[in-house]
């Protein structure tokens, strides 16, 4: 079977980076800048967006998903500039998004849910059944595809969420805390899926679990207080920490070292 691909997928790339932000600021509420002057360029690969709670990860992901508008600065997704107003249909067709706590319709089956999302994402009608089946199989829910969402466990619901995010074969895939609620075996399988997706997609995974990044990501974006602390490989992150910093692994030590140096209270509650 041929994979569902559109003319947009096979067209030559006319942009250097899938995601490019410069001086990006996003306001939440009236005063607080959740993203405060971010310069970032992300290409193909799996990027771990790492940071303490309240660092602005969710706001950044929502901005990249075009749910929020940038307050200031420039944001370019797949070569399209995202401003305050505009028509983003073509852009949104190529974005996959899994919100942190995503809602679903309890009476829908997994297949109906993913089909409905495929319809919302304007997947061509003829491709929907195959795309849905492929997405459901990729997250290992094929045997549960015709079960209602309300009968699924938390981990399965999350996997259904991942299925809806990848059903349109997105060029930019945004996952906000996707590993929450997955058991260790599922988490391993999910990391494999992430590596697989990262081969031809720009995947941004927000997480506060350092070990997820170590296992699955080709690139780390450390984010604190709305600003970029470091962007590099997991090895760069590990190299930043010494034995004197708190943490159980080189990556955790690097994480706390960088946060401390950037003026963040990484270790305290």
């Amino acid at each position, binding site marked *: 079977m041929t994979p569902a691909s559109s003319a947009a997928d096979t067209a030559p790339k006319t942009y250097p980076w899938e995601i490019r932000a410069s001086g990006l600021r996003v306001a939440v509420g009236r005063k607080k800048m959740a993203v405060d002057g971010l310069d970032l360029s992300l290409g193909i690969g799996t990027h771990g967006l790492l940071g303490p709670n309240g660092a602005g990860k969710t706001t950044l992901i929502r901005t990249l998903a*075009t749910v929020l508008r940038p307050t200031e600065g420039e944001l370019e997704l797949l070569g399209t500039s995202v401003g305050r*107003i*505009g028509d983003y249909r073509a852009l949104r067709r190529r974005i996959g998004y899994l919100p942190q706590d995503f809602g679903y319709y309890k009476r829908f089956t997994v297949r109906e849910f993913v089909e*409905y999302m495929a319809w919302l*994402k304007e997947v061509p009608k003829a491709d929907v059944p195959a795309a849905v089946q492929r997405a459901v199989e990729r997250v290992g829910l094929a045997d549960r595809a015709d079960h209602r969402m309300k009968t699924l466990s938390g981990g399965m619901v999350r996997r259904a969420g991942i299925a809806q995010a990848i059903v349109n074969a997105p060029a930019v895939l945004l996952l906000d805390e996707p590993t929450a609620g997955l058991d260790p075996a599922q988490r391993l399988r999910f990391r494999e899926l992430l590596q697989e997706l990262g081969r031809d997609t720009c995947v941004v995974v927000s997480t506060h679990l350092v070990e997820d990044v170590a296992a699955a990501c080709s690139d780390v974006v450390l984010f604190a207080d709305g600003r970029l602390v470091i962007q590099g490989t997991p090895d760069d992150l590990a190299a930043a920490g010494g034995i004197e910093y708190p943490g159980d692994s080189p990556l955790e030590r690097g994480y706390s070292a960088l946060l401390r140096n950037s003026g963040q209270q990484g270790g305290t509650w």
Partner: protein
Amino acid sequence: MSGEHASRRLIDDYARGDATMAADTVWALEAHLESCAPCRSHLAASVATEAPDVAALLDTVRAGLEPQLDAAARAPSRRHLTRRVSAWLTPAMAPWLAVIVVVTLMALLLNAVASPTFFGDTSPLLLIAPVLPLCGVAASWSRGLDPAHELTTSAARAGLPLLLRRTTAVLVVVLPGLLVGGWLTGTMAAAQWLLPSLAFTSTALAMGSVVGVTRAATGLLVAWGVLVVVPASATGRVPHALQRVLQPDQLPLWGLLLALGIGAVIARRNAYSTL
């Protein structure tokens, strides 16, 4: 190969798994079999006669699979209906359907029991009819009522097309209900409320491009409530001016409001991509 098809001898050799066949012959035969049903049926027949061990293996596999396949019940085919309904109504439609049914019934009830002196010569149904579709419009886009709101707003179809679909669905449900209600009570003519309710809906959509559809619809509902319900319960009468605007001779005014609303929606059609 003779003519357009593979010879029986070649197919028999292939079925036996003859190792002496040349690789290019096997390749050409397989390519041909993929696209030729008659030759595949020859192959099926020659497998049964030439390679009994393969046939026996297939039978064993089939015998093992059949009970499992029988056990896997086919999913009930309600998928097409669900998809078609979801394409127009929001999947979280139960709340607003309930609100609209309850409000219509309440108005009918009031109409039956309230003394004519309380509302003057205006029926309570007529007072809520213009704003009733707003309940549905507000609920279709409410973050609190729609669990998948976040997913919907980031999807390609979000924006004006989906907004218009859901609004149409609300009107299709609400307007016939009001029509029947008005006909049952005999207190209001369609001309009195149809245009005002459409005008209110289009105004809500137009304002929605600035403040959000739910907020706009709720705001209009509250404003109408303050203008109508409060004076009615304080003085026992609907303000005279309000009774005037719902008279059939004010239709051009409502028509103008409807046209303005539609014009504003068209002018700001790109502003709906974030709701």
